[in-house]
């Protein structure tokens, strides 16, 4: 009897308190199509940082699309209706995915390459510039999805250095970065191949950028959404601080670009843009200047959105990409050379 009272007391205590925090929480949202539609469009309205720049009127879009949802709307139809909102942003950072664990599930994101020629041909690159059979002086950092970094000199001119970072979505240690720049130190110019690099860690991209200047450089500002209102923004002004390394690279650099130069690669480009000895060669970049937030809708669909944008020192909005200083298109018919690299070599000679 004595223990029964204790047990009952404990149970009562548990029941009373276990629901307490839930009483202080907002109720769970509904998961029907209209509720999820409202949830997503509200997220875009409150969090997306570039509605004005992308010329998207979310209220008009919402009223146009909401009426298309009714009791007979299938899941696929609903996803496509919601995807219209995602597509309207024309933003590679903004996506909608039905189920991340299902590669065959529905997804919507912006195709950066649509309407643009191919920017790089791996076979041409390997067979003529960086493959072991044509270039024994190339060094690599393995890892990632192949290599984390490829560097050395080019067989066409041994005084010209070559550096390819296929992705910023890797870890490259400070010692490894030092090793790369030490090896490139005695070259007269550098081809920095950034093609295919769709981004990753902007801090790593910034660390590389800091090797290309010996003085602080004002880059512009990142404008963050800081609240739900249309004018709730705050600007973080960015000045690139130079690396403290003795192996900084202050000679001419040609950065090779294509449409896949995106996100953290844009961070690298705006960081070094004011440096006069650095030029871009190739195609218009993809952009993706902002930082990304992500989450799940009430029905479990994954969303990501750009919640900031970068405006550079010249006042340019960078999110839709930037044209290169020297436009060059790859000729895939001629497999003996990469026109973009060749043009960069000419500029550096």
């Amino acid at each position, binding site marked *: 009897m004595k223990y029964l009272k*204790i047990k009952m007391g*404990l149970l009562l*205590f*548990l029941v009373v*308190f*276990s629901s*307490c*925090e*839930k009483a*202080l*929480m*907002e*109720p*769970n*949202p509904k*998961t029907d199509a209209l509720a999820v539609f409202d949830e997503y469009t509200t997220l875009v309205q*409150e*969090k997306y*940082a570039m509605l004005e720049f992308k010329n998207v009127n979310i209220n008009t879009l919402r009223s146009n699309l909401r009426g298309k949802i009714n009791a007979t709307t299938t899941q696929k139809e609903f996803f496509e209706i919601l995807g219209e909102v995602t597509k309207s942003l024309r933003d590679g950072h903004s996506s909608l995915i039905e189920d*991340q*664990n299902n590669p065959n599930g529905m997804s919507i994101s912006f195709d950066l390459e649509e309407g643009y020629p191919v920017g790089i041909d791996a076979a041409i690159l390997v067979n003529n510039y960086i493959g072991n059979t044509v270039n024994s002086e190339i060094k690599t950092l393995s890892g990632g999805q192949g290599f984390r970094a490829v560097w050395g000199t080019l067989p066409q001119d041994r005084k010209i250095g070559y550096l390819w970072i296929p992705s910023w979505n890797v870890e490259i240690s400070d010692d490894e970065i030092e090793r790369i720049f030490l090896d490139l130190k005695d070259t007269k110019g550098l081809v920095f191949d950034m093609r295919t690099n769709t981004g990753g860690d*902007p*801090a790593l*991209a*910034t*660390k590389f950028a*800091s090797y290309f200047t010996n003085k602080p450089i004002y880059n512009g*500002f*990142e404008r*963050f*959404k*800081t*609240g*739900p209102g249309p004018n*709730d923004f*705050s*600007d*973080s*002004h*960015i000045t*690139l*601080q130079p690396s403290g390394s003795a192996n900084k690279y202050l000679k001419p650099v040609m950065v090779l670009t294509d449409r896949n130069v995106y996100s953290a690669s844009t*961070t690298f480009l705006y960081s070094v843009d004011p440096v006069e000895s650095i030029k871009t060669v190739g195609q218009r970049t993809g952009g993706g200047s902002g*930082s*990304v*937030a*992500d*989450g*799940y*809708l*009430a*029905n*479990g669909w*994954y969303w*990501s959105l750009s*919640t*900031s944008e970068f405006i550079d020192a010249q006042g340019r909005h960078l999110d839709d990409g930037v044209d290169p200083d020297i436009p060059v298109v790859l000729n895939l018919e001629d497999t003996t050379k990469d026109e973009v690299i060749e043009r960069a070599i000419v500029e550096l000679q």
Partner: protein
Amino acid sequence: MKKTYLIVLFFAVSLVQLHAQKTSSFYVDIGGGFSSFQDVKYSNVKYNGFGGVFGLGYLKENEKAIWGINLQGIVTTEKAATHDNTVSTYNPMLQAKYLHRIKENLFIGATWDVLDLYAKNFDGLGNNSAYNVTGSTLWASAIYDYKKFRFGLDLGLVSYFKESTGFAFSASQNVLENGDFDYQNDKIDSPFAFKYYELRTIPRHFQVRTSIRYQLSNRFSVGYKWHLRKFSEVKKYPVTYGIHSLSIRYNIFKRTK
């Protein structure tokens, strides 16, 4: 800040050493926990789930006071209420407390959560996968003894902390609002960058903790604890979480003089 912590801890320990000892115990706690979480900045969906609790501590009690230090850790896996995605939650905490005896069975004093690291890892997310609230809290504390029961109540007075995620990005709200964001600033991602800590008090930052412990024998006791926290670094977009734990305490030693 680290120095301040050590100095205050030293004085607290020295002060209580002056009191005559009555009972001292070194204990280990083990049990289960249930946690729930909601961050309205990103979704109204609640996350709930179960996990384990581990703790160890030292407690001294005499005719004038109770004091003790406690290290505890809670690990749970929560699932979203409306879909299948999960989040892992880790909550290690180091506490020190001192309560003065007011009546024979009533103690009033303070608890200091020297370090409270509440960290979450959302499966499948990118930049928003990691969420943490790191800091320190000073609580007003009360303990009431009734037969073999010990009831505890803590009310958070002031918290000095940093939330890792702001309204629309995985950086503290004050970092973004103050225009301090910079990829060359390592402190932004560090949970221990005091520059970005905020001092918050009730009611903007509400914390309450209750406990009930039943002494089964000289060595064993069973206890239930509940911790509720609700705060909003972005107005009208609160973060709320609760942690419940039920644990068995084993006194590795318990001496009465």
